[in-house]
């Protein structure tokens, strides 16, 4: 999977797009690309501009500056209907007065001859909705509605598909299964998929690549693993998972920090800011290797637990097996078990 996305040519390119709404800069010089067959997540806190970017690519908003290319063709000057880009909205936007089959057939009207000749049957089979052709949208579950929306979007024969918060309207219990199913369908289509989410777990598990947005700008783009383990800055590190920020003095491959000597992901020297994930800190009985700490509080999470430990004035989060017998107020030793990410320095 990683290989595909690294070698495939970028075919949807967003170059230097900016957008203002009155005094508010919604997007500031955003550039990113989508490769053939790739699922690319746009993630960021609400108001970061990710949905605006999606609407600019789809053609429902105009960019103030910059360009969008699909293949060799510049599309940001085209009307939405002329772009060849499909979009699945958060609320699916199914046509309530049409049946499942009619909803899909609606999108076939301007599709190529081969698709029109094939009709709705293969599309509904692809999303496993055969048998529900004559149902109306309000007679379907949320997951089924989403698959109708997907089949309908495929029907028009787009070259890329945009998904706006695709799973936010589903029950938490269904979300994980649905996500796997939809991912398989999307992957099988071979199309480029750009999707917006604010759920980090969704972005990490669903996407081939992730772009993290903040205040209308791209903070970092990369593979999920790279972003999680090698965040470019404190925002990305904190947004994609809980983490501990440490100040330290580096001297090459390691640094002196409040929790002792920590190895670094890249050589540095002088004062540095480091990010160390909770699972990268080990907890051990008092007197073991590491620095002494006091357990301030515990959060039980089922398969594991978080211990918040105090070292001097600072508090750190440590992930540990839930079965470990640790009590608040207990004295322990903590030490880094993996290298820390150098954020600044």
């Amino acid at each position, binding site marked *: 999977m990683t290989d595909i996305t690294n070698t495939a040519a970028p075919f949807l390119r967003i170059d230097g797009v900016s957008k203002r709404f009155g005094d508010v800069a919604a997007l500031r010089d955003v550039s990113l690309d989508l490769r053939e067959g790739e699922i690319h997540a746009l993630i960021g806190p609400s108001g970061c501009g990710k949905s605006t970017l999606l609407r600019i690519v789809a*053609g429902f908003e105009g960019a103030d500056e910059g360009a969008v290319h699909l293949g060799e063709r510049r599309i940001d000057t085209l*009307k939405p*209907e*002329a772009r060849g880009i499909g*979009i699945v909205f958060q609320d699916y936007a199914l046509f309530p*007065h049409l049946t499942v089959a009619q909803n899909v057939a*609606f999108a076939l*009207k301007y*599709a190529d001859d081969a698709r029109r000749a094939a009709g709705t049957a293969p599309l509904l089979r692809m999303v496993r909705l055969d048998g529900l052709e004559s149902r109306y949208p309000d007679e379907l579950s949320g997951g089924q509605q989403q698959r109708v929306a997907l089949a309908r979007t495929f029907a028009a024969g787009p070259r890329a598909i945009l998904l706006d918060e695709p799973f936010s309207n589903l029950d938490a219990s269904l979300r994980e299964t649905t996500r796997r199913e939809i991912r398989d369908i999307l992957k099988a289509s071979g199309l480029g998929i750009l999707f917006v989410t604010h759920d980090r777990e969704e972005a990490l598990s669903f996407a081939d690549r992730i772009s993290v947005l903040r205040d209308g700008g791209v903070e970092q783009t990369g593979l999920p693993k790279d972003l999680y383990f090698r965040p470019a800055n404190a925002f990305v590190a904190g947004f994609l998972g809980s983490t501990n920020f440490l100040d330290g003095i580096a001297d090459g491959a390691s640094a002196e920090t409040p929790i002792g000597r920590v190895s670094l992901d890249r050589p540095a020297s002088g004062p540095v800011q480091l990010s160390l994930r909770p699972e990268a800190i080990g907890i051990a009985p008092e007197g073991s290797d590491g620095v002494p700490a006091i357990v301030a509080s515990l959060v039980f999470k089922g398969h594991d637990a978080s211990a918040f430990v105090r070292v001097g004035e600072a508090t750190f989060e440590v992930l540990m097996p839930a079965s470990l017998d640790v009590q608040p107020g207990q004295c322990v030793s903590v030490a880094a078990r993996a290298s820390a990410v150098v954020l600044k320095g």
Partner: protein
Amino acid sequence: MLPAIVAGGMMLIPLVYLVVRASATERTELAAIVLRPFTLEVTLNTLALVGSVLALTTAIALPLALLVTRTDIPAKRAITILATLPLAIPGYVMAYALIGLSGYYGPLNAFFGLRLPRPEGLFGAALALSLYTFPYVFLNMRAALLGLDPALEESARSLGRSSRAAFLSVTLPHLRPALLSAWLVVALYTLGDYGAIALMRYDVLSSAIFSQYANAFEVNYAAWLALMLLAIAAAFLVLEGALNRGRRLARTGTGTRRSIPVVALGRWRWPALGFAALVHLASLGVPALVIAFWLSRAPADVDWAKVPATVLGTLSVALPAAALAVAIAVPVALVATRWPSRLTYGIERMTYFGYAVPALPFALATVFFTLAVVPALYQTLAILVIALALHSAALAVGPVRVRLLQIGPRVEESARSFGYSAPAAFRSVTLPALSRSVLAGAIFVFIMVAKELPITLLLAPSGFTTMAMNVFSRTHEGMLYEAAPYAALMIAFSAISVALMLRSERDRP
């Protein structure tokens, strides 16, 4: 955008001509014309009537609403429906029923030998208006009571208030906005009514406008009276807005609302049912009884041949007016929901303004506008249809606007992404989803226009007649049996709109 602006503008232009006409009065004559004792008398009468109607409708509707929402009174659904039905009875029909009940030849004397004086004046007018406008207060109060979060009253109880104190300190203040908006609707109805008040021979601003224009030919005086009536209506609008401003009564919690606990009536059950029965008897029983009585009394004397032509007369105005109102309402609602801005909001408000303007000033303004700008249209069916459509377009804007907000722009955007152009997307996606609301809006306008009296009286071409005009003029002439078939038809027509309202209330999730 353009059709919406035109529609909004058409609402205002006639009113400008009202001002133009009024200001044509010589300044020296102004005092002599306007400042007569008659002006003061009709103004005070108007205010007295509004006050009486508000008091009477509240006295009927508030207890009824409390009974069906807060107590275990039986047959709640039936009481609710019966308390909504009087909306179907036009004011002049209600007045006809009250007048037809008494009198030497009336049913009371015929059956019970009971002779009551003919109801008239302030009492008669207030009674007739209250008996058909109280449902507005009832429905508003009922909705407000049902919408109230019981946790509010429960919190007050847990903070040491008695159930009575909790009702007074928590529930009543929350009912205030709904009561005020219901009062506004009823007050505007009262200001706009002409038929019931004229039949009750009570002199108010609206009847003075009509008589000064149509009988005394003091057109400039009529224009001044119309402006005064407008000013009172505007004052009510501003007052309601001011009294409701800055109130923080929105529900802040996010939990699921529970249904309201009810009070057991115990031995008060029968008096309560008796009250409800009395209200229904007066508001529905009397009109039904009186119409049936007069229909049976002299069926041979009624000019039955005239009936189909009169129905046709009503249809020839109501159908095109409904179509035109919808043609105005859809673009207005569309621009207001899709491109919300100060301008589009203003345009939408304008249609409500046209609805709130009392009928006779509106009709008079239309006359002045027609005479000054398009004299060829004066006294034609066309200008009557246009005026009625503008006056009632707000009724069609409402449902269309609500539906457009429900549909939202996403479905159209979806269609665009499948290759549909903007107009094609609107036609194939939004319009079909809108059709039921457009039809509902058209029916509301149709019924409203079919019932309408003052504008029709003032603008109708000579010789043209409708069912509403017949009920009014026959009753006016004391030919109660002649009016009966038209009164019956009017109620049948209006019942459709109430049935629609009840259905939409039931369909609401």
